[in-house]
Protein backbone atom coordinates (compact mmCIF):
# COMPACT_ATOMS: atom_id res chain seq x y z
CA UNK A 1 0.00 0.00 0.00
CA UNK A 2 2.20 2.76 -1.25
CA UNK A 3 -0.49 5.24 -0.46
CA UNK A 4 -0.09 4.62 3.20
CA UNK A 5 3.64 4.80 2.99
CA UNK A 6 3.36 8.20 1.37
CA UNK A 7 1.96 9.58 4.62
CA UNK A 8 4.48 11.55 6.53
CA UNK A 9 3.76 12.36 10.08
CA UNK A 10 3.24 16.09 10.35
CA UNK A 11 5.77 17.82 12.47
CA UNK A 12 4.03 19.28 15.48
CA UNK A 13 5.50 22.06 17.54
CA UNK A 14 4.32 21.02 20.94
CA UNK A 15 5.42 24.20 22.59
CA UNK A 16 3.32 26.18 20.19
CA UNK A 17 0.33 24.00 20.89
CA UNK A 18 0.87 23.99 24.63
CA UNK A 19 -1.83 26.55 25.45
CA UNK A 20 -4.47 24.66 23.51
CA UNK A 21 -3.36 21.40 25.02
CA UNK A 22 -3.38 22.76 28.52
CA UNK A 23 -6.85 24.09 28.03
CA UNK A 24 -7.96 20.81 26.58
CA UNK A 25 -6.45 18.97 29.50
CA UNK A 26 -8.26 21.17 31.97
CA UNK A 27 -11.51 20.68 30.14
CA UNK A 28 -11.03 16.96 30.14
CA UNK A 29 -10.08 17.02 33.78
CA UNK A 30 -13.27 18.80 34.66
CA UNK A 31 -15.30 16.28 32.75
CA UNK A 32 -13.49 13.45 34.46
CA UNK A 33 -13.86 14.94 37.89
CA UNK A 34 -17.49 15.43 37.17
CA UNK A 35 -17.94 11.88 36.12
CA UNK A 36 -16.04 10.47 39.09
CA UNK A 37 -17.15 12.64 41.96
CA UNK A 38 -20.35 13.96 40.53
CA UNK A 39 -22.08 16.43 42.81
CA UNK A 40 -19.42 16.43 45.44
CA UNK A 41 -17.04 18.09 43.04
CA UNK A 42 -19.27 21.13 42.53
CA UNK A 43 -17.44 23.31 45.00
CA UNK A 44 -14.12 22.77 43.36
CA UNK A 45 -15.31 23.27 39.83
CA UNK A 46 -15.02 27.03 39.38
CA UNK A 47 -11.67 26.99 41.11
CA UNK A 48 -10.51 24.27 38.84
CA UNK A 49 -11.70 26.09 35.75
CA UNK A 50 -10.21 29.35 36.92
CA UNK A 51 -6.89 27.81 37.83
CA UNK A 52 -6.88 26.02 34.52
CA UNK A 53 -7.33 29.26 32.67
CA UNK A 54 -4.57 30.88 34.61
CA UNK A 55 -2.37 27.86 34.05
CA UNK A 56 -2.94 28.21 30.34
CA UNK A 57 -1.40 31.64 30.55
CA UNK A 58 1.90 30.08 31.52
CA UNK A 59 2.73 28.52 28.16
CA UNK A 60 1.55 31.71 26.54
CA UNK A 61 4.05 33.61 28.63
CA UNK A 62 6.83 31.23 27.78
CA UNK A 63 5.98 31.53 24.13
CA UNK A 64 5.94 35.28 24.40
CA UNK A 65 9.28 35.28 26.12
CA UNK A 66 10.61 32.94 23.51
CA UNK A 67 9.35 35.36 20.95
CA UNK A 68 9.93 33.34 17.78
CA UNK A 69 7.10 33.11 15.37
CA UNK A 70 5.95 29.53 14.95
CA UNK A 71 4.14 28.48 11.87
CA UNK A 72 2.75 25.04 11.17
CA UNK A 73 1.14 23.30 8.22
CA UNK A 74 2.33 25.77 5.68
CA UNK A 75 1.12 28.74 7.58
CA UNK A 76 -2.30 27.31 8.41
CA UNK A 77 -1.67 27.55 12.11
CA UNK A 78 0.54 30.33 13.36
CA UNK A 79 1.67 31.26 16.82
CA UNK A 80 2.92 34.80 16.76
CA UNK A 81 2.69 37.82 19.02
CA UNK A 82 -0.68 38.74 17.66
CA UNK A 83 -2.15 35.38 18.47
CA UNK A 84 -0.50 35.29 21.86
CA UNK A 85 -1.86 38.67 22.82
CA UNK A 86 -5.33 37.63 21.88
CA UNK A 87 -5.09 34.23 23.46
CA UNK A 88 -4.11 35.90 26.67
CA UNK A 89 -7.00 38.28 26.28
CA UNK A 90 -9.46 35.44 25.76
CA UNK A 91 -8.16 33.58 28.75
CA UNK A 92 -8.25 36.55 31.04
CA UNK A 93 -11.75 37.46 29.93
CA UNK A 94 -12.65 33.84 30.46
CA UNK A 95 -11.20 34.00 33.91
CA UNK A 96 -13.22 37.06 34.79
CA UNK A 97 -16.33 35.39 33.45
CA UNK A 98 -15.61 32.38 35.62
CA UNK A 99 -15.29 34.68 38.59
CA UNK A 100 -18.60 36.22 37.71
CA UNK A 101 -20.16 32.81 37.31
CA UNK A 102 -19.17 31.29 40.60
CA UNK A 103 -22.01 32.54 42.73
CA UNK A 104 -24.44 33.06 39.94
CA UNK A 105 -24.28 29.50 38.72
CA UNK A 106 -24.10 28.04 42.19
CA UNK A 107 -27.12 29.95 43.42
CA UNK A 108 -29.21 29.31 40.36
CA UNK A 109 -30.52 26.00 39.28
CA UNK A 110 -27.82 25.18 36.79
CA UNK A 111 -25.79 22.27 35.67
CA UNK A 112 -22.58 23.51 37.07
CA UNK A 113 -19.85 21.19 35.93
CA UNK A 114 -20.99 21.03 32.35
CA UNK A 115 -21.22 24.78 32.36
CA UNK A 116 -17.53 25.11 32.94
CA UNK A 117 -16.74 22.37 30.49
CA UNK A 118 -18.59 24.13 27.75
CA UNK A 119 -17.09 27.46 28.65
CA UNK A 120 -13.62 26.02 28.44
CA UNK A 121 -14.45 24.40 25.13
CA UNK A 122 -15.64 27.66 23.77
CA UNK A 123 -12.49 29.33 25.01
CA UNK A 124 -10.49 26.62 23.33
CA UNK A 125 -12.18 27.56 20.10
CA UNK A 126 -11.24 31.17 20.62
CA UNK A 127 -7.68 30.33 21.44
CA UNK A 128 -7.49 28.31 18.28
CA UNK A 129 -9.14 31.03 16.30
CA UNK A 130 -6.37 33.48 17.02
CA UNK A 131 -3.84 31.13 15.45
CA UNK A 132 -5.85 29.95 12.51
CA UNK A 133 -4.80 31.18 9.11
CA UNK A 134 -6.77 28.70 7.10
CA UNK A 135 -10.39 28.58 6.05
CA UNK A 136 -11.00 25.16 7.53
CA UNK A 137 -9.28 26.00 10.80
CA UNK A 138 -11.18 29.23 11.06
CA UNK A 139 -14.41 27.50 10.33
CA UNK A 140 -13.84 24.77 12.86
CA UNK A 141 -12.61 27.16 15.49
CA UNK A 142 -15.65 29.29 14.91
CA UNK A 143 -17.97 26.37 15.38
CA UNK A 144 -16.01 25.18 18.36
CA UNK A 145 -16.48 28.45 20.08
CA UNK A 146 -20.04 28.98 18.91
CA UNK A 147 -21.78 25.71 19.54
CA UNK A 148 -21.04 25.58 23.27
CA UNK A 149 -22.08 29.19 23.42
CA UNK A 150 -25.45 28.39 21.86
CA UNK A 151 -26.03 25.92 24.59
CA UNK A 152 -24.77 28.17 27.35
CA UNK A 153 -27.23 30.80 26.27
CA UNK A 154 -30.02 28.34 26.87
CA UNK A 155 -28.45 27.10 30.08
CA UNK A 156 -31.15 28.27 32.42
CA UNK A 157 -33.24 25.32 31.48
CA UNK A 158 -36.35 26.29 33.32
CA UNK A 159 -36.41 29.78 31.95
CA UNK A 160 -38.34 30.43 28.79
CA UNK A 161 -36.32 33.50 28.07
CA UNK A 162 -33.08 31.65 28.34
CA UNK A 163 -34.38 28.87 26.05
CA UNK A 164 -35.54 31.40 23.58
CA UNK A 165 -32.25 33.21 23.76
CA UNK A 166 -30.49 29.97 22.96
CA UNK A 167 -32.78 29.24 20.04
CA UNK A 168 -32.39 32.65 18.50
CA UNK A 169 -28.68 32.63 18.93
CA UNK A 170 -28.44 29.14 17.56
CA UNK A 171 -30.60 29.74 14.52
CA UNK A 172 -29.04 33.04 13.61
CA UNK A 173 -25.63 31.57 14.20
CA UNK A 174 -26.31 28.71 11.90
CA UNK A 175 -27.77 30.95 9.24
CA UNK A 176 -24.70 33.08 9.38
CA UNK A 177 -22.46 30.04 9.29
CA UNK A 178 -24.25 28.87 6.20
CA UNK A 179 -23.74 32.16 4.45
CA UNK A 180 -20.15 32.23 5.56
CA UNK A 181 -19.55 28.71 4.37
CA UNK A 182 -21.06 29.48 1.04
CA UNK A 183 -18.76 32.41 0.78
CA UNK A 184 -15.81 30.28 1.79
CA UNK A 185 -16.71 27.77 -0.86
CA UNK A 186 -16.65 30.51 -3.47
CA UNK A 187 -13.36 31.86 -2.23
CA UNK A 188 -11.99 28.38 -2.23
CA UNK A 189 -13.29 27.91 -5.70
CA UNK A 190 -11.46 30.92 -6.98
CA UNK A 191 -8.19 30.20 -5.29
CA UNK A 192 -8.11 26.47 -4.88
CA UNK A 193 -6.66 26.77 -1.44
CA UNK A 194 -7.82 27.16 2.08
CA UNK A 195 -4.63 28.83 3.18
CA UNK A 196 -4.87 32.58 3.77
CA UNK A 197 -1.53 33.41 2.27
CA UNK A 198 -2.35 31.60 -0.92
CA UNK A 199 -5.79 33.12 -1.00
CA UNK A 200 -4.27 36.54 -0.61
CA UNK A 201 -1.99 35.96 -3.55
CA UNK A 202 -4.69 34.54 -5.78
CA UNK A 203 -7.35 37.07 -4.92
CA UNK A 204 -5.08 40.00 -4.94
CA UNK A 205 -3.59 39.28 -8.33
CA UNK A 206 -6.68 38.53 -10.35
CA UNK A 207 -8.94 41.12 -11.88
CA UNK A 208 -12.01 42.09 -9.95
CA UNK A 209 -14.80 39.62 -10.41
CA UNK A 210 -18.23 39.11 -9.10
CA UNK A 211 -17.51 35.74 -7.53
CA UNK A 212 -14.66 37.16 -5.51
CA UNK A 213 -16.88 39.96 -4.38
CA UNK A 214 -19.62 37.56 -3.44
CA UNK A 215 -17.27 35.20 -1.68
CA UNK A 216 -15.58 37.89 0.36
CA UNK A 217 -18.86 39.52 1.18
CA UNK A 218 -20.47 36.32 2.38
CA UNK A 219 -17.50 35.36 4.49
CA UNK A 220 -17.40 38.77 6.08
CA UNK A 221 -21.13 38.67 6.72
CA UNK A 222 -20.67 35.43 8.60
CA UNK A 223 -18.32 37.11 11.01
CA UNK A 224 -20.24 40.36 11.02
CA UNK A 225 -22.93 38.28 12.62
CA UNK A 226 -20.51 37.10 15.22
CA UNK A 227 -19.54 40.63 16.17
CA UNK A 228 -23.21 41.60 15.99
CA UNK A 229 -22.82 44.20 13.33
CA UNK A 230 -25.96 45.83 11.98
CA UNK A 231 -27.93 44.45 10.16
CA UNK A 232 -26.77 41.09 11.46
CA UNK A 233 -27.07 42.10 15.07
CA UNK A 234 -30.65 41.20 15.69
CA UNK A 235 -29.91 38.18 17.81
CA UNK A 236 -27.74 40.02 20.25
CA UNK A 237 -30.20 42.01 22.36
CA UNK A 238 -32.61 39.14 22.74
CA UNK A 239 -29.92 36.62 23.49
CA UNK A 240 -28.14 38.92 25.91
CA UNK A 241 -31.32 39.61 27.75
CA UNK A 242 -32.36 36.00 27.99
CA UNK A 243 -29.07 34.30 28.65
CA UNK A 244 -27.64 33.93 32.13
CA UNK A 245 -25.76 37.14 32.86
CA UNK A 246 -22.23 35.67 32.98
CA UNK A 247 -22.92 34.03 29.65
CA UNK A 248 -24.06 37.33 28.31
CA UNK A 249 -20.84 38.88 29.44
CA UNK A 250 -18.99 36.02 27.83
CA UNK A 251 -20.83 36.52 24.56
CA UNK A 252 -20.48 40.25 24.63
CA UNK A 253 -16.78 40.15 25.24
CA UNK A 254 -15.03 36.92 24.42
CA UNK A 255 -17.25 35.79 21.62
CA UNK A 256 -17.25 39.18 20.00
CA UNK A 257 -13.51 39.38 20.37
CA UNK A 258 -13.17 36.05 18.64
CA UNK A 259 -15.23 37.31 15.76
CA UNK A 260 -13.03 40.36 15.55
CA UNK A 261 -9.93 38.23 15.59
CA UNK A 262 -11.25 36.17 12.74
CA UNK A 263 -12.08 39.33 10.83
CA UNK A 264 -8.62 40.73 11.43
CA UNK A 265 -7.02 37.61 10.02
CA UNK A 266 -9.36 37.44 7.08
CA UNK A 267 -9.22 41.08 6.23
CA UNK A 268 -5.61 41.80 6.89
CA UNK A 269 -4.19 38.58 5.59
CA UNK A 270 -6.52 36.99 3.12
CA UNK A 271 -8.52 39.84 1.63
CA UNK A 272 -6.18 42.76 1.98
CA UNK A 273 -5.70 43.02 -1.74
CA UNK A 274 -9.43 43.36 -2.24
CA UNK A 275 -9.76 46.70 -0.53
CA UNK A 276 -12.30 47.72 -3.14
CA UNK A 277 -14.72 45.37 -1.44
CA UNK A 278 -13.49 45.31 2.09
CA UNK A 279 -13.19 49.00 2.78
CA UNK A 280 -16.58 50.16 1.55
CA UNK A 281 -18.20 47.18 3.18
CA UNK A 282 -16.81 48.02 6.55
CA UNK A 283 -17.37 51.70 6.10
CA UNK A 284 -21.02 51.04 5.60
CA UNK A 285 -21.33 48.36 8.24
CA UNK A 286 -19.45 50.24 10.91
CA UNK A 287 -21.38 53.44 10.33
CA UNK A 288 -24.65 51.56 10.43
CA UNK A 289 -23.69 49.54 13.46
CA UNK A 290 -22.59 52.47 15.53
CA UNK A 291 -25.55 54.57 14.67
CA UNK A 292 -28.31 52.02 14.85
CA UNK A 293 -26.89 50.45 17.99
CA UNK A 294 -26.68 53.78 19.72
CA UNK A 295 -30.04 55.03 18.59
CA UNK A 296 -31.92 51.96 19.70
CA UNK A 297 -30.02 51.93 22.94
CA UNK A 298 -31.49 55.33 23.69
CA UNK A 299 -34.87 53.72 24.14
CA UNK A 300 -33.98 50.78 26.33
CA UNK A 301 -35.24 50.36 29.83
CA UNK A 302 -33.51 47.11 30.66
CA UNK A 303 -29.91 47.41 31.67
CA UNK A 304 -28.79 44.24 29.94
CA UNK A 305 -30.52 45.19 26.74
CA UNK A 306 -28.97 48.58 27.03
CA UNK A 307 -25.57 47.03 27.40
CA UNK A 308 -26.39 44.76 24.48
CA UNK A 309 -27.08 47.68 22.21
CA UNK A 310 -24.15 49.48 23.66
CA UNK A 311 -22.11 46.42 22.82
CA UNK A 312 -23.42 46.50 19.28
CA UNK A 313 -22.41 50.12 18.98
CA UNK A 314 -19.04 49.37 20.49
CA UNK A 315 -18.68 46.65 17.90
CA UNK A 316 -19.39 49.27 15.31
CA UNK A 317 -16.57 51.35 16.68
CA UNK A 318 -14.30 48.37 16.49
CA UNK A 319 -15.21 47.84 12.87
CA UNK A 320 -14.23 51.37 11.99
CA UNK A 321 -10.53 50.63 11.48
CA UNK A 322 -11.44 47.92 9.01
CA UNK A 323 -12.77 50.63 6.77
CA UNK A 324 -9.22 51.81 6.32
CA UNK A 325 -7.74 48.34 6.42
CA UNK A 326 -5.71 48.73 3.30
CA UNK A 327 -4.89 52.40 3.65
CA UNK A 328 -3.41 52.14 7.10
CA UNK A 329 -3.16 48.46 7.92
CA UNK A 330 -0.78 48.72 10.83
CA UNK A 331 -2.74 51.43 12.61
CA UNK A 332 -5.98 49.66 11.91
CA UNK A 333 -4.90 46.38 13.48
CA UNK A 334 -3.46 48.23 16.38
CA UNK A 335 -6.67 50.10 16.85
CA UNK A 336 -8.79 46.96 16.81
CA UNK A 337 -6.57 45.05 19.17
CA UNK A 338 -6.34 47.92 21.59
CA UNK A 339 -10.04 48.46 21.42
CA UNK A 340 -10.68 44.80 22.04
CA UNK A 341 -8.42 44.68 25.03
CA UNK A 342 -9.89 47.74 26.66
CA UNK A 343 -13.42 46.85 25.72
CA UNK A 344 -13.02 43.45 27.29
CA UNK A 345 -12.29 44.89 30.68
CA UNK A 346 -14.68 47.76 30.72
CA UNK A 347 -17.59 45.75 29.42
CA UNK A 348 -16.92 42.82 31.71
CA UNK A 349 -16.73 45.28 34.55
CA UNK A 350 -20.09 46.75 33.64
CA UNK A 351 -21.64 43.31 33.52
CA UNK A 352 -20.10 42.43 36.84
CA UNK A 353 -21.77 45.43 38.40
CA UNK A 354 -25.05 44.46 36.80
CA UNK A 355 -24.63 41.02 38.26
CA UNK A 356 -23.84 42.35 41.70
CA UNK A 357 -26.76 44.75 41.70
CA UNK A 358 -29.17 42.18 40.38
CA UNK A 359 -28.32 39.95 43.32
CA UNK A 360 -30.08 42.48 45.46
CA UNK A 361 -32.70 44.02 43.25
CA UNK A 362 -33.61 40.93 41.24
CA UNK A 363 -34.32 43.29 38.40
CA UNK A 364 -32.76 44.25 35.15
CA UNK A 365 -34.61 47.53 34.83
CA UNK A 366 -32.56 50.68 34.74
CA UNK A 367 -34.97 52.20 37.21
CA UNK A 368 -33.83 49.70 39.78
CA UNK A 369 -30.49 51.50 39.89
CA UNK A 370 -32.05 54.50 41.52
CA UNK A 371 -30.11 55.69 44.51
CA UNK A 372 -27.35 53.17 44.07
CA UNK A 373 -24.85 55.85 44.94
CA UNK A 374 -26.58 56.29 48.26
CA UNK A 375 -26.50 52.74 49.46
CA UNK A 376 -23.70 51.19 47.42
CA UNK A 377 -21.30 53.99 46.56
CA UNK A 378 -18.52 51.62 45.67
CA UNK A 379 -20.55 49.84 43.04
CA UNK A 380 -21.92 53.12 41.77
CA UNK A 381 -18.46 54.58 41.36
CA UNK A 382 -17.27 51.40 39.69
CA UNK A 383 -20.20 51.45 37.31
CA UNK A 384 -19.56 55.10 36.63
CA UNK A 385 -16.00 54.37 35.71
CA UNK A 386 -17.01 51.53 33.42
CA UNK A 387 -19.66 53.56 31.72
CA UNK A 388 -17.32 56.49 31.39
CA UNK A 389 -14.82 54.14 29.85
CA UNK A 390 -17.42 52.84 27.44
CA UNK A 391 -18.30 56.40 26.56
CA UNK A 392 -14.64 57.16 26.01
CA UNK A 393 -14.10 59.73 28.68
CA UNK A 394 -10.63 60.05 30.16
CA UNK A 395 -9.17 59.00 32.44
CA UNK A 396 -11.18 55.81 32.26
CA UNK A 397 -9.69 53.43 29.74
CA UNK A 398 -12.09 53.74 26.84
CA UNK A 399 -10.74 57.00 25.55
CA UNK A 400 -7.61 55.39 24.32
CA UNK A 401 -9.61 52.87 22.38
CA UNK A 402 -11.54 55.60 20.63
CA UNK A 403 -8.33 57.47 20.17
CA UNK A 404 -6.93 54.46 18.36
CA UNK A 405 -9.83 54.57 15.92
CA UNK A 406 -9.33 58.19 15.12
CA UNK A 407 -5.66 57.58 14.80
CA UNK A 408 -6.19 54.86 12.25
CA UNK A 409 -8.70 56.94 10.34
CA UNK A 410 -6.48 59.97 10.18
CA UNK A 411 -3.44 57.98 9.34
CA UNK A 412 -5.36 56.76 6.33
CA UNK A 413 -6.60 60.25 5.62
CA UNK A 414 -9.01 61.27 2.92
CA UNK A 415 -12.57 62.41 2.88
CA UNK A 416 -14.23 59.08 3.53
CA UNK A 417 -12.08 58.40 6.55
CA UNK A 418 -12.72 61.88 7.87
CA UNK A 419 -16.45 61.49 7.33
CA UNK A 420 -16.39 58.25 9.25
CA UNK A 421 -14.45 60.03 11.95
CA UNK A 422 -17.21 62.58 12.26
CA UNK A 423 -19.79 59.81 12.44
CA UNK A 424 -17.79 58.26 15.24
CA UNK A 425 -17.69 61.60 17.00
CA UNK A 426 -21.43 62.05 16.74
CA UNK A 427 -22.00 58.54 17.95
CA UNK A 428 -19.79 59.10 20.94
CA UNK A 429 -22.18 61.82 21.93
CA UNK A 430 -25.29 59.73 21.38
CA UNK A 431 -23.72 56.91 23.33
CA UNK A 432 -23.16 59.03 26.35
CA UNK A 433 -26.79 60.03 26.33
CA UNK A 434 -27.87 56.54 27.32
CA UNK A 435 -24.97 55.78 29.58
CA UNK A 436 -25.97 58.95 31.32
CA UNK A 437 -29.43 57.55 31.96
CA UNK A 438 -27.88 54.87 34.10
CA UNK A 439 -25.63 57.41 35.76
CA UNK A 440 -28.59 59.61 36.47
CA UNK A 441 -30.48 56.80 38.12
CA UNK A 442 -27.51 55.89 40.25
CA UNK A 443 -26.51 59.34 41.29
CA UNK A 444 -29.39 61.72 40.91
CA UNK A 445 -32.35 59.68 42.08
CA UNK A 446 -33.25 58.55 45.54
CA UNK A 447 -33.55 54.84 46.15
CA UNK A 448 -36.91 53.34 45.35
CA UNK A 449 -39.06 53.08 48.44
CA UNK A 450 -36.14 54.21 50.51
CA UNK A 451 -34.65 50.74 50.40
CA UNK A 452 -31.08 51.52 51.26
CA UNK A 453 -29.88 48.15 52.36
CA UNK A 454 -26.31 47.80 51.18
CA UNK A 455 -25.36 45.24 48.58
CA UNK A 456 -23.22 42.31 49.63
CA UNK A 457 -20.42 41.79 47.18
CA UNK A 458 -19.14 38.26 47.24
CA UNK A 459 -15.47 37.45 47.03
CA UNK A 460 -15.52 36.27 43.46
CA UNK A 461 -17.48 39.23 42.22
CA UNK A 462 -15.26 41.50 44.21
CA UNK A 463 -12.25 39.95 42.57
CA UNK A 464 -13.78 40.34 39.14
CA UNK A 465 -14.56 43.96 39.89
CA UNK A 466 -11.08 44.62 41.15
CA UNK A 467 -9.45 43.12 38.10
CA UNK A 468 -11.63 44.95 35.64
CA UNK A 469 -11.54 48.21 37.52
CA UNK A 470 -7.80 48.24 37.86
CA UNK A 471 -7.32 47.34 34.25
CA UNK A 472 -9.79 49.94 33.05
CA UNK A 473 -8.19 52.72 35.04
CA UNK A 474 -4.67 51.60 34.26
CA UNK A 475 -5.39 51.56 30.56
CA UNK A 476 -6.77 55.03 30.82
CA UNK A 477 -3.97 56.55 32.78
CA UNK A 478 -1.12 54.62 31.27
CA UNK A 479 -2.39 53.60 27.89
CA UNK A 480 1.09 52.50 27.04
CA UNK A 481 0.32 49.24 28.79
CA UNK A 482 -2.29 48.22 26.32
CA UNK A 483 -0.82 50.18 23.48
CA UNK A 484 2.21 48.00 23.60
CA UNK A 485 0.18 44.91 22.93
CA UNK A 486 -1.51 46.64 20.08
CA UNK A 487 1.81 47.48 18.60
CA UNK A 488 3.33 44.03 18.80
CA UNK A 489 0.19 42.56 17.30
CA UNK A 490 0.62 44.54 14.15
CA UNK A 491 4.00 43.35 13.12
CA UNK A 492 3.29 39.68 12.93
CA UNK A 493 -0.25 39.84 11.63
CA UNK A 494 0.93 41.67 8.59
CA UNK A 495 3.68 39.16 8.20
CA UNK A 496 6.21 41.70 9.20
Amino acid sequence: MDVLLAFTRPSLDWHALAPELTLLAVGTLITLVDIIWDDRSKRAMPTLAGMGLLATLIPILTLAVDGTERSMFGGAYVVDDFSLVLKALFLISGYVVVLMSVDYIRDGDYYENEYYTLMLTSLLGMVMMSSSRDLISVFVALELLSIPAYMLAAWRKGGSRSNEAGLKYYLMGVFASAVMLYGMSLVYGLTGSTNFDTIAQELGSGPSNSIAILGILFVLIGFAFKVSAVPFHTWAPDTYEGAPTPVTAFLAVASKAAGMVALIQLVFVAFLGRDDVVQPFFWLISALTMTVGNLIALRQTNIVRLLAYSGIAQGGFMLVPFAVAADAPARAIEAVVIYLAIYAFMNLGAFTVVLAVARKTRSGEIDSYAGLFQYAPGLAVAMTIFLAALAGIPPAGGWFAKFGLFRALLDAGGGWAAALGVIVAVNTVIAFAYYARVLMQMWFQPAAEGDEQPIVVTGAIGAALTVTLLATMAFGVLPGLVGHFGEVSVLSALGG
Partner: protein
Amino acid sequence: MLLNQFLILGALLFSVGVYGVLARRNGVMVLMSIELMLNAVNINLVVFGVQHGVVSGQVFALFVIAVAAAEVGVGLAIVLLLYRNRTSIDVEDFDLMRG
Protein backbone atom coordinates in the same frame (compact mmCIF):
# COMPACT_ATOMS: atom_id res chain seq x y z
CA MET B 1 -19.95 18.82 -18.03
CA LEU B 2 -19.98 22.42 -17.23
CA LEU B 3 -18.68 23.64 -13.93
CA ASN B 4 -21.74 25.78 -13.65
CA GLN B 5 -24.09 22.85 -13.72
CA PHE B 6 -22.99 21.97 -10.23
CA LEU B 7 -22.53 25.45 -9.00
CA ILE B 8 -25.95 26.57 -10.08
CA LEU B 9 -27.45 23.47 -8.57
CA GLY B 10 -25.70 24.45 -5.35
CA ALA B 11 -26.94 27.99 -5.62
CA LEU B 12 -30.50 26.83 -6.20
CA LEU B 13 -30.31 24.46 -3.31
CA PHE B 14 -28.97 27.21 -1.11
CA SER B 15 -31.80 29.52 -2.10
CA VAL B 16 -34.36 26.88 -1.45
CA GLY B 17 -32.77 26.35 1.95
CA VAL B 18 -32.98 30.05 2.62
CA TYR B 19 -36.62 30.01 1.71
CA GLY B 20 -37.13 27.06 3.98
CA VAL B 21 -35.56 28.57 7.04
CA LEU B 22 -37.40 31.80 6.56
CA ALA B 23 -40.80 30.48 5.69
CA ARG B 24 -41.24 27.36 7.79
CA ARG B 25 -42.77 27.76 11.18
CA ASN B 26 -41.96 24.38 12.56
CA GLY B 27 -38.64 24.39 14.38
CA VAL B 28 -37.61 20.99 13.13
CA MET B 29 -38.41 22.03 9.59
CA VAL B 30 -36.17 25.00 9.98
CA LEU B 31 -33.39 22.74 11.10
CA MET B 32 -33.94 20.53 8.10
CA SER B 33 -33.81 23.47 5.76
CA ILE B 34 -30.47 24.42 7.20
CA GLU B 35 -29.16 21.13 5.99
CA LEU B 36 -30.08 22.16 2.47
CA MET B 37 -27.88 25.18 2.70
CA LEU B 38 -24.99 23.27 4.14
CA ASN B 39 -25.27 20.69 1.44
CA ALA B 40 -25.21 23.37 -1.18
CA VAL B 41 -21.90 24.42 0.25
CA ASN B 42 -20.64 20.91 0.09
CA ILE B 43 -21.43 20.63 -3.60
CA ASN B 44 -19.44 23.74 -4.24
CA LEU B 45 -16.52 22.53 -2.19
CA VAL B 46 -16.33 19.20 -3.88
CA VAL B 47 -16.72 20.60 -7.34
CA PHE B 48 -14.08 23.24 -6.79
CA GLY B 49 -11.77 20.62 -5.33
CA VAL B 50 -12.15 18.65 -8.52
CA GLN B 51 -11.74 21.74 -10.64
CA HIS B 52 -8.48 22.68 -8.99
CA GLY B 53 -7.30 19.13 -8.68
CA VAL B 54 -6.77 19.35 -4.95
CA VAL B 55 -8.09 17.24 -2.16
CA SER B 56 -8.78 20.00 0.32
CA GLY B 57 -12.23 20.52 -1.13
CA GLN B 58 -13.29 17.10 -0.05
CA VAL B 59 -11.69 17.51 3.31
CA PHE B 60 -13.52 20.76 3.80
CA ALA B 61 -16.75 19.07 2.86
CA LEU B 62 -16.11 16.35 5.44
CA PHE B 63 -15.56 18.95 8.13
CA VAL B 64 -18.75 20.64 7.13
CA ILE B 65 -20.63 17.39 7.40
CA ALA B 66 -19.20 16.71 10.82
CA VAL B 67 -19.99 20.15 12.09
CA ALA B 68 -23.44 19.95 10.60
CA ALA B 69 -24.07 16.81 12.55
CA ALA B 70 -23.04 18.47 15.76
CA GLU B 71 -25.19 21.46 14.96
CA VAL B 72 -28.22 19.36 14.29
CA GLY B 73 -27.76 17.61 17.59
CA VAL B 74 -27.50 20.85 19.47
CA GLY B 75 -30.32 22.39 17.53
CA LEU B 76 -32.64 19.57 18.27
CA ALA B 77 -31.71 19.67 21.92
CA ILE B 78 -32.64 23.31 22.07
CA VAL B 79 -35.86 22.75 20.19
CA LEU B 80 -36.75 19.96 22.55
CA LEU B 81 -35.98 22.15 25.52
CA LEU B 82 -38.28 24.80 24.19
CA TYR B 83 -40.93 22.29 23.42
CA ARG B 84 -40.77 21.07 26.97
CA ASN B 85 -41.15 24.52 28.43
CA ARG B 86 -43.53 26.00 25.94
CA THR B 87 -45.19 22.97 24.35
CA SER B 88 -44.65 24.54 21.01
CA ILE B 89 -42.03 24.37 18.35
CA ASP B 90 -43.48 27.17 16.30
CA VAL B 91 -40.65 29.62 15.93
CA GLU B 92 -43.11 32.45 15.52
CA ASP B 93 -44.22 31.93 19.09
CA PHE B 94 -40.86 32.71 20.50
CA ASP B 95 -40.88 36.46 20.88
CA LEU B 96 -40.79 37.02 24.59
CA MET B 97 -37.91 39.40 24.13
CA ARG B 98 -38.05 42.14 21.59
CA GLY B 99 -37.38 45.84 21.04
